[in-house]
């Protein structure tokens, strides 16, 4: 049997992140960037919103999946651009995404437990 590849795992995370980014990304950037409504970035407002466990969880999951989405695409684009395949390259990409996801989950946990 030929060696199996871990690719399906990363592709699934990439796909989930891509789907989430497409569905809620533009609206979220609008809310925080405009901001909408104008007082959305106030400390009290945001704390109130994050007090809702679903909001905290949604943001935490988004951060993690988007990082995996980015890691996957960036890795393959580097290959596309002619960067030679080296074992450390996927380790850096997916390792970075894993670290960021763990941090995001930690922060989310702190929020949910509050």
């Amino acid at each position, binding site marked *: 049997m*030929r060696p199996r*590849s871990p690719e399906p795992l990363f592709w699934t995370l990439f796909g989930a992140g891509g789907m989430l980014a497409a569905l809620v990304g533009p609206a979220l950037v609008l809310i925080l960037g405009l901001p909408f409504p104008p007082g959305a970035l106030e400390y009290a407002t945001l704390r109130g919103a994050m007090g809702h466990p679903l909001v905290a969880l949604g943001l935490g999951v988004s951060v993690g999946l988007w990082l995996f989405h980015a890691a996957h695409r960036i890795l393959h684009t580097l290959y*596309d651009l002619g960067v030679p395949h080296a074992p450390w390259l996927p380790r850096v990409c997916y390792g970075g995404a894993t670290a960021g996801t763990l941090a995001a989950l930690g922060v989310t946990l702190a929020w949910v437990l509050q």
Partner: protein
Amino acid sequence: MSDPRIIVMECLRYHPERDTEPYHQRFEVPFTPEMSVLEGLQYIKDHLDGSLTFRWSCRMAVCGNCGCMVNGEPVLSCQTFLRDYHPECVRVEPLDHFPIQRDLAVDPADFLDKLQQVAPYLIPAQDRIPEDGPYRQTPEQMQDYLDTSACINCLLCYAACPQYGLKADFLGPAVLALAHRYNADSRDAGRARRMEVMNGDAGVWGCTLVGRCSEVCPKGVDPAGAINRNKPAAALDTLRRLLQSGRTCTP
């Protein structure tokens, strides 16, 4: 139309016994509105330079032999018309991403080799003999694979796929589409065998969905769709194996 107009055809030339590098040669070809690029090449071969090498057979978009790059687009030269380019010149080159054998003829050995790997034929669950009678299939079941069965192995999709050009191992659009064609056939039971090859880095995971294969296919095969519809199934297959043995996923 009155007297034939003249179009400039710029052909890539490469004769391995003579040339170290390919170069382009210009030919002035008189053409009529119904003349295809292939007929232009034939005019060159008959009247201007008998050493120009290119492949063709059916002249009617059936055999898949005459594919080449025309002004950077992979096309069947027998269904591409000179009138659509005049007064610009047409640049005719061998299909991208394949080794050039001679002038416009490429070496398709890599494709043929990969095609065999996916067992592109029906693998019935039980051996059958003619006395068993014909395979039966409803029109709906036939619809499941009909699109992908139209492939004529013209290799245009390979010339449109940068991943095939970049990765020596990648099975490429048509091979994966044909694997899908047999997997999707209700008479076939060879899915598990093909999955071995399809669910690898050289299989569906080699595809990053550039998507141009489906745009250039002259037969409406949609290889990009055929490949990517298999990704969720291939991912599930991996997950299942992972759960079963817990040791299959080593990079």
